[in-house]
């Protein structure tokens, strides 16, 4: 019996030594916070861009962003060609994006141009933390330092924006793509696609 109790003690010790752990790893990835690649199935060719949650606003003139696709790949486009207006400013603004605290978020997208021959005919990217979803001009917009297609880039060639840090932001934000042109000299077109906001952690 002495032996048996000794054994039980030893057995108990062993089971304590071999402790439990069930942690598994997962492949690292940067979780998406927001993405829009304008899927071809949802594109209404040349129709005014009206995806749910987005704002499509003409600050000057009447031209708006439109839906397009090429080679099974959808995108949005702004062109002031033939508007006959002295100024065309079009905003495409994302739905509200919630950036978690410490998300270290990054924005990336691609853009392309054609017929743009003047730096004043341009695409700019902004972020706002106080846009209310309707009143574009009342919001505070901060320009983001993005690489965008311009008069120097080749026609219809998508340019990656690079990783634009949104690390300074958290909570609800909107991102705006603002194209500026007119119906005469600045009448090139701008295309935007593959918009992603992801955590860089």
């Amino acid at each position: 019996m002495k032996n048996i109790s000794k054994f039980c003690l030893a057995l108990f010790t062993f089971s304590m030594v071999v402790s439990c752990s069930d942690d598994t790893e997962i492949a690292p990835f940067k979780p998406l916070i927001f993405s829009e690649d304008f899927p071809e199935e949802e594109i209404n060719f040349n129709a005014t861009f009206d995806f749910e949650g987005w704002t499509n606003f003409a600050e000057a003139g009447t031209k708006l962003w439109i839906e397009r696709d090429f080679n099974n790949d959808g995108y949005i486009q702004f062109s002031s060609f033939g508007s006959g207006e002295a100024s065309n400013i079009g905003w495409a603004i994302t739905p509200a994006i919630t950036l978690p605290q410490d998300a270290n978020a990054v924005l990336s997208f691609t853009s392309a141009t054609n017929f743009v021959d003047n730096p004043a005919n341009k695409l700019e990217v902004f972020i706002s933390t106080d846009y209310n979803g309707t009143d574009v001009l009342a919001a505070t917009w901060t320009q983001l330092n993005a690489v965008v297609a311009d008069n120097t880039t080749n026609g219809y060639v998508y340019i990656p924006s690079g990783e634009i840090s949104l690390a300074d932001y958290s909570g609800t934000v909107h991102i705006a793509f603002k194209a500026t042109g007119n119906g005469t000299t600045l009448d090139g077109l701008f295309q935007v696609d593959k918009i992603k906001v992801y955590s860089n952690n």
Partner: protein
Amino acid sequence: MSAVKFLLRTFQEKINLILFMKKLVISTLFVMQVFFVFAQTATTGITGKVVDSKTQKPLQNVVASIENTSLTALTNAAGVFVFNEVPQGSQLLQIKSTGYKDQLLSVDVIAGKMLDLGIIVFEEDITSEQQLSLVTITENDLGDDNSGSESTSGLLQASRDVYQQAAAFNWGQARFRIRGLDNEYGITMINGISMNKLYDGRPQWSNWGGLNDATRNQEFTMGSAPSDYTFGGLLGTQEINTRASMYRRGSRISFSGTNTNYSWRMMGTHASGMNTDGWAFVVSASRRWANEGYFEGTNYDANSVFASVEKKINDKHSINFTSIFAQNKRGKSSPNTDEVTRLKGIEYNSYWGWQEGEKRNSRYKEIEEPINMLSHYWKITDKTTLNTNVAYQVGFVGNSRLDFQLANNPDPTYYKNLPSYYLNDETYYVPTYAPDNVTIIGYTNPSAEIAQTNFVNDGQINWNNIYYTNKVVNRGERSAYVLYEDRVEDKQWSANSYLNSAIADNITLNAGINFKKLRSKNFQKLIDLLGGSYFNDIDPFFSGNASQSDLNNPDRQVRVGDAYGYNYYLNATTFDGFTQFKFSYKKADFYLAQSFSRTEYQREGNYRNGIYPTNSFGKSKSVVFENFGFKGGLTYKITGKQFLDFNGLYMTKAPSLRNTFSNARLNNNITPDLSSESIMGSDVSYIIKAPKFKARLTGFYNKISNATEISFFYGEGIFDAGEDGSTDTDSFISEIVTGMNKKHVGAEFGFEYQITSTIKAIGSASYGQYTYDNNPNLKVNDDALATSSNINPVTDFGKAYLKGYRLPGMPQQAYSFGLEYRDPKFWWIGANINYLTDSYLDVSSILRTQNFVVDVNGSGVGFEGATEESVRALLKQEKFEPITLLNLVGGKSWRVGNDTFGFFASINNVLDFEYKTGGFEQSRKATYPEYLADNANGTPSFGPKYFYGYGRTYFVNLYINF
């Protein structure tokens, strides 16, 4: 007159029996505490006479040994053993012989006296009947090749350790594996020649299946403990000795019925014993068969013959010839998804179909690989023996399957035949409307309902349709469907020589060398044209030259018996040697061993494959591995009855032939990043060996590093679509995982306690944590990406994040408790209850690469919706439900004249507990959104496939020994 004679004889028998019973009761009572009768002699020694409890006949060649010394003695023809010059004092005497229970006797040796233990009655080991009846689950061979889902019960059946017996007899049915290790880490030998296949490192148990009587002389070592025959591995060694003079003289015929993988077994064995001219022979034959085993459509047909002849030339030399011929053909059973099992039950098998009133299984496995072996035993001196063996094994293994071209997949569980396919595609849902004919109030899925009805009502291979297609639609010309075998035809020479020498009183030397040369032909063999008259030897998934199996012989029409598809040789030459020194002292025994091996592999293509015209035909580069190993251990004797035992091992191991050529069927490419495994093992045990109580507690820590695993499957979303989006991303690929580390940590415990002289309690416990210990590298070979400039189309997928996942395929915890009652009147009964848990699904490696979570390769940005929680939830490893198994065993034997009749019966899983023994994730939906979509409504089309254990099964064996 004859009636009177008969009565008289019966009367006589009865008296004999009564006398005999009296003797037996006395001897049983005193079996543990022996009378000490002192004879007047001058030497200090021990003597005794060993007899069989049933026949009371003396037993020859019983091994008696005094624990903690190197003293051993064998009984002579009169059953008597004698030890001279035994150290005086309290000693433990162990007496053992195959088929009998070991006996451990405490004796007091007095100087100058010969201690006479009198008659020692040897009882037959009841587990030996169990051993002769064990249906190794391994025979069921669930995997497609000789792989994966196997338990180690075949290896363990001859073990005497309580824990290992529980592992073999009680837990084997649930695929328990000792220390979580695959059979490739153990070595199974016949006369010291390793029977582990060079192809995958695993022994092919079917090579001697059904010859339980003839293969019962076995020695077993556990873990890295020393064996006299080989350096060994991490799991242990099993040595089957077929030397004819080792078999106890006698004959045995047995007949068994069971409802496991076969229904009936007949076996007959005769051993002559050594005659005065120095000849001994053993013959044995068996037949096992079933029209249908436990699972549907699993027919079974096995015949085995064994012969061994020994000629003792003189006192120093003996020659033995052994011939083992075992043929085995059996229908396989399919692993099934939960959806299939829910519709058809666990005994469902998708591999068979009705043909002219018979169940025809499309997937059978046939093995016929006879072994012939010549052995030379040389007793060089009293202290040194040299044993040399040469073996030749030739034969084939065939695994059949249906092949088809430009026709529907005949698999009844093909995903388009199952309701889930329609349920997972929204276009098959039809709205139902409210009476206003506008408002949608719900949806139905008639296609899913039809698929379900068809599958439930039929769900088997439609042979009639196959024949109709070939015979009528194709007018009996080109077969759209054929039956073929993946066939392996091996020729292997093996030779070994091992030395055992007592170089000093307390030092023993073991040394051995082994040589093997294998030529293995691998090809697709056409078995049945199924009503057509030829089959086209092309791969219809490719076009032009790439569709040709053999550019040297393009556009062949193949017929029954022809090779087609792929055709190559694998050549291997291995050499290994080891030395081992064992030291035995009063307080401690220890040993040291080292090994060296050289392995050379080469592929030789017989076809010039159309996809790989420049690297498929002819010889590959030859691959050489040089490996070594060291091990050592110590047994510290706390007292004569308590021991501490330590073992440590470090070795490297060449990759198997299977894993060396990553795309062997098509080309000569060598697996990228291929390297030897390194293996580290250690264990510590505390052992008690007392006459009434025996127990062992062991803790172990094993690490296997740099392992390689290759698997084949169809994958979707593994390669990105081309720029125009038109490329078919669904491809047949091979997945190459290298640099994989595994950790096996745990403890095992076993005890037996003789409560009374007739009742024994037995308990065993195993607690393990067997995990992947790193994130190995994963590469994928896709033939579709091969070009003339890319003859090794391997894509690097980076790391597979496997660290922390459990190794699959076996319960990592197991517990057993049993009681045995052994009546002096030669019957016995036992029951044990077992609880097994922590068994896990085999996870797909490719699902754990970045490819699964990252949308655009290289960007690192996850798919929409993929968060750490959601990915973790999808990839969580499935843990199977715990298993409870109640088993009953019993037997009785009668002596009639000089013969013994008996029966043995067991009922396993008395409670008819339904359980999964293993399974694997499918890799077809290899990205997060695809996987999510497939699992969206709970009935994935590509869900995991599972293997199930047997429900309640029985085994009854009737035998006569004469």
